[in-house]
């Protein structure tokens, strides 16, 4: 019984990996300008051997296209795994990775940077925005966590966490609204643009940082797959199965915050990927987290790369904000999945 299931799981993960590679190649190849496979090959070879690209096209490839493609893979993996972790933790299939305040806090942090930066006229260099967003995301999540355990029992229940998250999200977003209302025109536009998500800022430095957060986060998440499975039965049952539920919650939230805050800091708010990816995977092969976590890293990376490809080629040479693409594509898919409803909520 379980051996064929294991084999099916391995095959599905292999298929997802192949799809990711194909999409990654396509997303490197097509864009404002297209590269032939031979150009891609020689430019990559030049990059690996450390030679300076000779042509403008070569530089576009090495300094813009390639880091952007890698960034899409990483951020997609972060959002996919974050969605899986949060849905497992909250035992609820309609939860997004930003639920506990992370992405709205990051949005508030970045809005504060845009407005205060222009008012106080300081120029803190290229890292100020991601740092402000990351701090905002982590701070908002911390507030949610602290408030949710301040209840009478002192224990942070999942429902308290969920509701506190909703409240803090609303507060952060109204803060963003207020800041864009009082902001002058260019700052207001920056806030709006950032809230729609953008991949255009990706360079090798930011890719390295997001890469460390992603790979570390995914590797750690896999260790919690089994206890998260037990948590499907509820907190009491998980305790009876020997899971230290309090520590599990803390660990999973921390991993999720680290991944989502760092990813959001460099790319802005990108919705729906974290929500949809675990859904699709569950329909294919059920809810075992040992499969879901690995699968959502691969499928998240694939879907976000597809979205970025669409964002870049649909209005060539201009591009769409990626958050608009994920929502336009994601919402109908999500509604379709809901109607199909292969499983009960």
């Amino acid at each position, binding site marked *: *019984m*379980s051996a064929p*299931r294991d084999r099916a799981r391995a095959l599905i993960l292999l298929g997802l990996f192949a799809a990711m590679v194909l999409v990654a190649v396509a997303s490197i190849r097509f864009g404002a300008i297209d590269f032939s496979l031979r150009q891609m090959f020689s430019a990559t070879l030049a990059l690996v051997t450390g030679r300076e690209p000779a042509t403008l096209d070569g530089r576009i490839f090495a300094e813009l296209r390639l880091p952007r493609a890698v960034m899409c893979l990483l951020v997609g993996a972060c959002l996919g795994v974050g969605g899986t972790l949060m849905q497992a933790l909250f*035992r*609820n*299939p309609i939860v997004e990775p930003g639920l506990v305040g992370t992405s709205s806090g990051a949005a508030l942090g970045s809005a504060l940077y845009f407005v205060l930066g222009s008012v106080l006229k300081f120029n803190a260099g290229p890292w100020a925005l991601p740092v402000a967003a990351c701090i905002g995301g982590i701070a908002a999540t911390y507030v949610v966590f602290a408030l949710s355990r301040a209840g009478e029992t002192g224990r942070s229940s999942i429902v308290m966490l969920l509701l506190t998250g909703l409240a803090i999200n609303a507060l952060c977003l109204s803060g963003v609204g207020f800041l864009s209302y009082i902001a002058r025109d260019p700052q207001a536009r920056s806030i709006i643009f950032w809230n729609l998500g953008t991949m255009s800022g990706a360079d090798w430095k930011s890719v390295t940082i997001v890469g460390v957060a992603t790979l570390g986060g995914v590797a750690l998440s896999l260790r919690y797959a*089994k206890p998260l*499975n*037990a948590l*499907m*039965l*509820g907190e*009491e*049952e998980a*305790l*009876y*199965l*020997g*899971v*230290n539920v309090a520590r599990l919650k803390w660990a999973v939230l921390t991993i999720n915050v680290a991944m989502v805050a760092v990813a959001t800091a460099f790319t802005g708010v990108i919705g729906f990927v974290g929500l949809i990816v675990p859904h699709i995977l*569950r329909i294919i092969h*059920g*809810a*075992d987290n040992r499969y879901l976590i690995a699968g959502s890293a691969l499928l998240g990376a694939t879907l976000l790369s597809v979205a970025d490809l669409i964002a870049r080629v649909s209005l060539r040479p201009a591009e769409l904000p990626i958050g608009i693409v994920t929502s336009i594509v994601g919402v109908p898919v999500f509604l379709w999945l809901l109607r199909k409803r*292969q*499983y*009960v*909520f």
Partner: protein
Amino acid sequence: MLSASDLVYCVGRRRILDRVSAAFDPGRLHLIIGPNGAGKSTLVKLLARLIVPDMGDVRYGGADAQTLTHRDLARRRAVLSQAVEVAFPIPARELVMMGRYPHFTGRPSAADEEICDEVMDFFDVTGLAGQSYATLSGGEKQRVNFARVLAQVWRPIVEGCRYLFLDEPLTFLDIGHQLGFMRKVRSFADQPDMIVVGVVHDLNLAARFADRLVLIDDGRVAAAGAPEDVLTPEHLQKAFHVQPIAVRNPADGGLHLIFE
């Protein structure tokens, strides 16, 4: 041997349990009875260490329950509670395998697989193995859960007793499945290293299957001992405000209560 001494448990100002002491022996089936709100469920949760007493302690063998790690405890103690709902699609077999989670890291061993097969066979749910748990009927879900919980303590462990707690497990079962389940628990409790403590509502099921009864009323132990000694008209009048008439079951001569 499992023992509770002077357990006190409060919620806010209210004392749910007030200095409850009890001892539970291996190889015996102990059932806790009592009126609604008396603290039966709380007692089982304290014994199973889901919650921690405000005063008093629970001892597993010689060891204070507080000193055991979550995983150590889960290897020797399983708890069957009321209906478990799962929001995600998971095959029944995988759910049963969760009962073995405390026993392996990484992948399940051949013994874990074997135990899963045996418990699923024991509870007659082998045919449901590949079905998604969420699509099962209430009774089927309950039986799959029995299998999961028993998988946790199915085989003797190297050292010490195994403990099985039942927290009103008969919800959603028809009379046939109730009796079938109690017979299975009965046979399980006959193993010499097995301590079974459960809460049931039906006094006649309690009378028929238990070796020892503990009557809890208003947070205290009102009576404890053999069923014949606990289910007396005085005790039942005081705890439940009912007047029982004791008759004999024509089939086996056992105690049976009817109520005025």
